[in-house]
């Protein structure tokens, strides 16, 4: 039995049945008085590998075989990398490449792990040991010595005396994370007000409704009953930089239904054209594209959180976590019969944000 600084005893060999964890008078270990008596250790049961020499040899063989299997797995992974190269034209080659490299690597690692655990369980010495829990607080001499070391270090380095060096070091450490702040700020829009960006989209008076992704303008006559068109504003498909940012705000679903089915508010009667209505595709909950349109029930379903919108009734929420109706895009028809926007959306599209009016 060994004694540590705190006077607790480490029971390193508690093999005897029912070994007692008696604490000596010098011990500082915390002993709680439980209602149940400490049953002690269960009787030690020798393993089959301790009793039978043959079994011991067998376990030894298993362990080194597993380690050899690991070597085979590693070599197999290298061979598989060469034997199953990824061919750009054939997606199936990725599958074979990943499968065989993965098999080889998992064999290599698993065999080491299983071999090591089996070694530990079957062959390594199996006596149970107990380590007493020590109090967190160190002994007085140890604590005094620690304070002494700090004072000595302060004296020798001059950290407390040379204040200019100390303060400049603290300053340097404070300034060091600033580049990260600036870099992350650069990910957002720099020269524009993000609130204004969220409030407006590419739609404005006279912009034609075009098909996603081709950018072909849509004639009102093309939108037959029961149709749904996925719409982007004219010019978006030719945009290079920032196309996806604009599309994420301006995407619209165009639907034609029987004008008798539409229940329209007085002030919005002019926003539709002969049963053709256009609604923002961006869910007002967290901004998923709402495009699961049911032709007969006229319901729109958001696949992310199952919000449902009633297209007959200005896309009011009829189920789910969304709180606001989908914004409607006022549309009209130009002289050539193409569908155009009357204006931008009259409210910000998508989910709520802090400064949303």
């Amino acid at each position, binding site marked *: 039995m060994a004694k540590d600084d705190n006077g607790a005893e480490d029971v390193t060999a508690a093999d005897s049945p029912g070994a007692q964890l008696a604490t000596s008078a010098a011990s500082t270990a915390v002993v709680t008085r439980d209602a149940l008596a400490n049953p002690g250790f269960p009787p030690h*049961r020798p393993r089959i590998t301790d009793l039978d020499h043959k079994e011991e040899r067998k376990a030894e063989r298993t362990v080194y075989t597993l380690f050899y299997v690991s070597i085979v797995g590693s070599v197999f992974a290298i061979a598989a990398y060469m034997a199953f190269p990824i061919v750009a034209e054939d997606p199936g080659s990725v*599958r074979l490449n990943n499968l065989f490299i993965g098999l080889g690597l998992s064999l290599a690692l698993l065999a080491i792990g299983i071999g090591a655990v089996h070694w530990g369980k079957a062959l390594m010495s199996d006596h149970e040991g107990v380590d007493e829990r020590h109090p967190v607080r160190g002994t007085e001499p140890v604590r005094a010595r620690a304070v002494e070391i700090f004072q000595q270090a302060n004296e020798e380095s001059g950290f407390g005396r040379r204040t200019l060096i100390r303060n400049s070091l603290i300053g340097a450490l404070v300034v060091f994370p600033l580049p990260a702040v600036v870099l992350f700020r650069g990910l957002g829009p720099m020269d524009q007000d993000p609130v204004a960006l969220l409030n407006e989209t590419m739609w404005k008076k006279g912009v034609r409704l075009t098909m996603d992704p081709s950018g072909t303008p849509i004639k009102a006559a093309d*939108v037959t009953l029961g149709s749904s068109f996925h719409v982007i504003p004219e010019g978006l498909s030719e945009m290079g930089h920032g196309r996806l940012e604009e599309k994420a705000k301006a995407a619209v679903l165009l639907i034609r239904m029987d004008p008798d089915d539409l229940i329209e508010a007085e002030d919005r009667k002019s926003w539709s054209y002969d049963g053709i209505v256009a609604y923002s595709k961006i869910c007002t909950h967290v901004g998923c594209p709402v495009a699961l349109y049911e*032709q007969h029930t006229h319901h729109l379903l958001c696949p992310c959180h199952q919000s449902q919108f009633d297209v007959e009734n200005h896309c009011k929420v009829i189920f789910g976590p969304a709180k606001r109706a989908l914004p409607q895009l006022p549309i009209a028809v130009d002289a050539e019969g193409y569908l155009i926007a009357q204006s931008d959306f009259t409210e910000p599209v998508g989910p709520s944000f802090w400064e949303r009016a």
Partner: protein
Amino acid sequence: MTTIKTPRARRPRKTGRRHPLASVALIAIGLLFTGGAYVAFSSSTAVATTDASSQQTIAQGEKLFAANCATCHGLSAQGSSEGPSLIGVGAASVDFQVGTGRMPMQMQGPQAQKKPVQFTAEQTAALAAYVASLAPGPAIPAAELLDAAGDAATGAELFRINCAMCHNVAGAGGALTEGKFAPAIENVSAQHIYEAMITGPQNMPVFNDMNISPEDKRDIITYLKYVEDNPSPGGLALGSLGPVAEGLFIWIFGLGAIVALTVWITAKSN
């Protein structure tokens, strides 16, 4: 060596028609011939009835309609409270609904389900000809649009924009509201896919030729057939259902393996 071999050589060898496998072979040959003859016969009858617009076919379709469909759709296909009017739905609609077994409907419900086809190809064609004769509507697509030899990449983009939100990006289908669902498009014939796009069966929106041109529809079919014929590069697709199937798999098998390993590591060696 010779002493062992001789008795075997003396035994009369079972050859020719006395061989134990002779009867099996005979039955196989017999089945092959009857099956082949049946296939040859049935294909020749199918070829014989392609004239969809003939008055005789339409008359046959009208009889079938009166016997099987008129209860819900009305005697002159005008519709009733039980079923919609079929005037102007076109031959494509009939071929899709009857050809996939959705019609005649088994029972009223949120959605007509796919089931074993109730009519022969000939009867389906007759029904389609009759309904098409009532008013103009989408026709059964031409074979050159169904060859799945278009541009799979274009088709994939169009599918993602127009179809994937309901039918899943790999065409595995998905749930809609109140018991309705978008069916899986795996192993659906090119003709039925095309017809579904132009007619918009049940709650599916219509994708007319101004929205998705016939060539684009061909590309979409090409993409779907490509997905069907090529294994997923990522390995086991688990029905391509996404996080639900994959999460369930890793919860059961991944965590199960970890629990089993933990039990094994902490168990006492015997």
